[in-house]
């Protein structure tokens, strides 16, 4: 009669009591190799940063908090915030339009998204800045009818308005796709339930669908805002005094190109890191109550 081996019963050739808690970790040689390679790379890079005189670290320190640089940073942040807000609102409307049951509206919003995702933002900026060639005066009146007032385009389109218009139209096209994906990700049963409660289409969208869509919208929207922040550096081509333009003005005078670019990079890095923190907090907020 053979009896099945039981815990605690000594077996021939087996230790008396097996307890995996006493196991020691395996040695993984590849990890050691990867660690060593990393260490060498980091050390090499650090030496490059410290010993290469081209970085001119004292110059970086001198201009990091320069009033002109800070003013440029302020302009970059202002532009990012304005475009973020306008672009999100317009993107939300476009997304709602694309999901509309009225075909012409859905089609028009689709065309908008296709067109404005295809045009490089740099091209748009230059185009809007030069709108005066196409439209010397901006009229206000009845379509195909009389004009009540009009303004000279060149006095309306400053580099700020051109930047806001160009970047907002670009941003809105991307936000529209992000929001649309978020809305489509919400279970159809949620909309049914909201309608069944007697909510109007608008109440069900604002109270039920959108809050749940936010969980899907926030991560890509965060990336989009970060790329927008960096995208604002394009406005330096239309002579708008953003962060990049401000350091360019300085290095055109002093020829300290590398240290001043490092100043700009440092500030972009700081802002992007804070945006990432904000994004994580938003994700946690909208993740509440979800599976």
């Amino acid at each position, binding site marked *: 009669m053979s009896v099945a081996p039981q815990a605690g019963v000594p077996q021939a050739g087996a230790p008396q009591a097996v307890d995996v808690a006493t196991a020691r970790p395996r040695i993984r040689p590849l990890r050691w190799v990867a660690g060593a390679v990393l260490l060498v790379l980091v050390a090499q890079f650090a030496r490059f940063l410290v010993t290469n005189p081209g970085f001119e670290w004292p110059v970086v320190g001198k201009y990091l908090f320069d009033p002109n640089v800070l003013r440029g940073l302020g302009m970059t942040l202002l532009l990012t915030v304005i475009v973020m807000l306008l672009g999100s609102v317009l993107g939300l409307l476009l997304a709602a339009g694309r999901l509309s049951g009225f075909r012409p509206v859905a089609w028009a919003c689709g065309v908008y998204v296709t067109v404005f995702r295809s045009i490089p933002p740099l091209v748009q900026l230059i185009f809007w800045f030069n709108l005066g060639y196409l439209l010397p005066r901006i009229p206000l009146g009845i379509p195909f009818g009389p004009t009540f007032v009009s303004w000279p385009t060149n006095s309306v389109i400053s580099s700020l308005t051109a930047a806001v218009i160009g970047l907002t139209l670009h941003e809105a096209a991307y936000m529209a796709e992000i929001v649309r994906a978020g809305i489509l990700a919400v*279970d159809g*049963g*949620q909309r*049914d*339930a*909201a*309608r*069944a*409660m*007697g*909510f*109007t*289409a608008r*109440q069900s969208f604002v*109270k*039920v669908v959108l*809050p*749940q869509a936010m969980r899907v919208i926030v991560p890509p929207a965060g990336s989009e805002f970060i790329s927008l922040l960096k995208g604002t550096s394009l406005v330096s081509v239309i002579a708008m005094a953003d962060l990049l333009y401000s350091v360019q003005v300085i290095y055109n005078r002093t020829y300290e190109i590398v240290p001043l670019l490092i100043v700009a990079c440092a500030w972009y890095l700081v802002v992007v890191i804070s945006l990432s923190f904000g994004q994580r907090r938003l994700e946690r907020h909208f993740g*509440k*109550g*979800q*599976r």
Partner: protein
Amino acid sequence: MSDTPVLRVRDVRKRFGDHVALDGVSLDVHEGEVVTVIGPSGSGKSTLVRCVHQLESIDGGAMHLDGELLGYEFHRGHLRPLPDRRVAAQRGRMGMVFQQFNLFPHWSVLRNVIEAQVLVHGRRPEEAREAALRLLERVGLADKADAHPRMLSGGQQQRVAIARALATNPRIMLFDEPTSALDPELVDEVLSVVLDLARGGMTMIIVTHEMSFAREVADRCVFMENGRVVETGAPEEIFDNPASPRLRAFLSRYSGRAAQIPDERLLEEETTS
């Protein structure tokens, strides 16, 4: 007035593309009456209650709630669809319970039951809160008021969904297979709440696959197949003395395995062949 049915459905037609979901369905539901709808999957039972609740538009026929035409109005001698706001108000006078519960996951249980009262029916928040707590008490979940839906079992979620639908004092409650998504051991807690409502005189249409329940709770039972009402009558007639061969065939598939969940695909195959 008293002989106006709460719900009158007349010759309602609905198709999805080439598929005819409802092929001229008529049904009256009177005050305090409980109507159960049985039939194989794909027979149009769910489509019927979804159409009554105007979650789906209908292609023809007409539906009246307390004598008021649902979804349409007369305008200069022609019928035209109602604006969204008026349709929403009509929906607000009916309660719906879904197979998948569809609680709002971003709100607490209590807020799920409160919100429609405030938003749709303009009740004061304190009043709505008291009503919500009373209803949660009634479905035995007063202690879960502050929980989030995902923390509840399926049976508990469905009881909250019933409380939510009741919160606006609906004229009629519509149940779309309320226990089909539940684990077998959770079915009874939901059915007992529904039974309790029936005894309280609530007007209801219940689409269900639970045959013994369909018989026990019903004043009248409707058997549907291929988008038509095949047979309708008192539950004893339907279950003990089925007139049509199709109903007999349908019921025989359930007898002897009352405790089992019906194999829906099998039923579907047999009805289409």
